[in-house]
């Protein structure tokens, strides 16, 4: 499974690489990283068929996670990839907006990696 992780924090890469080191070693998951919404869109054009899951921070400078979600869900792709939103602000407004735009799931920071792994497995089948 190819997963595109979008976040403006660069250290999200070593974190995910280590958190999922078993899955990566076993070849179950292949991660790509983007540090802004714009970069993520570019990456999706290049790796369209591979992008399956996007972990996007809603709060990013420039294009926000919600905007990215909207573009992915409504414009670009058929079939659209699963999009999971992760944000530091787990308020109702953000949640509802994300759901309205077609997010498949909504997580709040700090990420509970155990439950994230389970959710990814559920998508991956």
């Amino acid at each position, binding site marked *: 499974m190819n997963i595109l992780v979008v976040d403006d*924090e660069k*250290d999200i890469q*070593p*974190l995910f690489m*280590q*958190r999922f080191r078993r899955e990566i070693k076993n070849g179950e998951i292949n991660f790509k990283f983007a540090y802004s919404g714009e970069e993520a869109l570019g990456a999706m054009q290049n790796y369209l068929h591979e992008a399956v899951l996007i972990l996007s921070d809603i*709060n990013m*400078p*420039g*294009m*926000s996670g919600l*905007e990215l979600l909207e573009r992915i869900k409504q414009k670009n792709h058929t079939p659209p990839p699963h999009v999971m939103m992760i944000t*530091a*602000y787990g*308020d109702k*407004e*953000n949640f509802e*907006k994300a759901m309205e735009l077609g997010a498949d799931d909504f997580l709040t*920071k*700090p*990420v509970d*990696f155990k439950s994230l792994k389970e959710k990814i497995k559920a998508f991956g089948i």
Partner: protein
Amino acid sequence: MNFTILPFLLSLALSQRLYKFSKNNQLNQWVKPLNYARYFTGFLLVVEIILSASNTIRWFWHLFLIGLLLFANQQKEMRPLRMFLLAFAPYAAVALLSDLAEIILNDFYVQWNNYFKNAGLLSIIWLLAILFSQHRQYKAAEKERIKRQQEDEINRAIAARKVELEGLVEERTAELKNQKEELEHALHELKATQNQLIQSEKMASLGELTAGIAHEIQNPLNFVNNFSEINSELIDELKEELEKGDKESVAEIANDIKGNEQKIMQHGKRAESIVKGMLLHSRGKSGEKELTDINALCDEYLRLSYHGFRAKDKSFNASFELETEENLPKIKVVPQEIGRVLLNLINNAFYAVNEKQKSGISDYKPRVVVHTEQKNNKIEIKVQDNGNGIPRSLKDKIFQPFFTTKSTGQGTGLGLSISYDIIANGHNGDIRVESKEKQGTGFTIILPLEI
């Protein structure tokens, strides 16, 4: 006839004078009798003419005249008339004596007739001379009296006016004193309010910061927790590999652990510096000038401001960029004060682009750029936005205290005025503003290298 009219005229003049004098000087008990005396002279004249008995009547004239003179002479209140009475006395005496002599000593009278006539004439001249001089004196005195009366009147008016003015002055003084006290009180209250406002402005910008700060701290803390958990897992794996004796894997895992450890430290430090920045911001004016990395300060406050906005307004979104001159020298400033100014200008910039975005212009990309640069012996920090700009009419007002375009409760109107004070008075620098309507605003902080 000569003899008949003269006594009448003199008697009338005397009684008239006495009557007038009594009336003017409030000698009330004599007014009436002297009035009758006046009529009596007329009565005598009529009797004399009708009876044609001047020889008999002249004795009445003598008695009447002398009586009046004696009467007036005895009245203390009539002292001022002394000279007047004295004018009549010789005539009365000469007339009486001459008439008496004519009757009693007829020979003597006939022999000395000329002398008697001369004496009569002299007494009349005397009378006229005295009356004339009296009249002049009286006129002069009257003139003097009128003058004095006028002066008195003027003085009285002046005195009255003075009293009135003094009353007014007293009243005004009391009013002024009241006003002064009121003003002093108001000034005191204003000063207290000003201090409160400055404090609340500080707290307001701190309040705006807290959400940003929470977000900024949460992220590094998440990393610290995550990498620390991973390390704990890795150490377990390390033990397993040690037991297996796989040296290569052990070395690999050890490297990972070390790398993670560095990440933990790095993010721990990041959180620490944010907390420090927050403490600096909330601390008062006690801050001292210290060598400060302006680029780092800009970076910190740009992020804080951005996240503060994001936290407050969920729909807010803008791109921001920091363009720094890499070798910017450190300068001696009070970091929390310059930080406050930066926060203020950056907050304003984000506010401006947010407002423009809310107005629904299609294809609008809100953007805030903070740019640092050394120019000669000065450092320039420019905060540029692409919002709606400042209308020309408001440009001169933006640095005035309490001027704000934000609705009540949204802004204190003190941000820019405090910022200007910090830069111009506290750091010998300047803040300039360039703004184009519909295109955006750029605030430039200019700080000398040597402050």
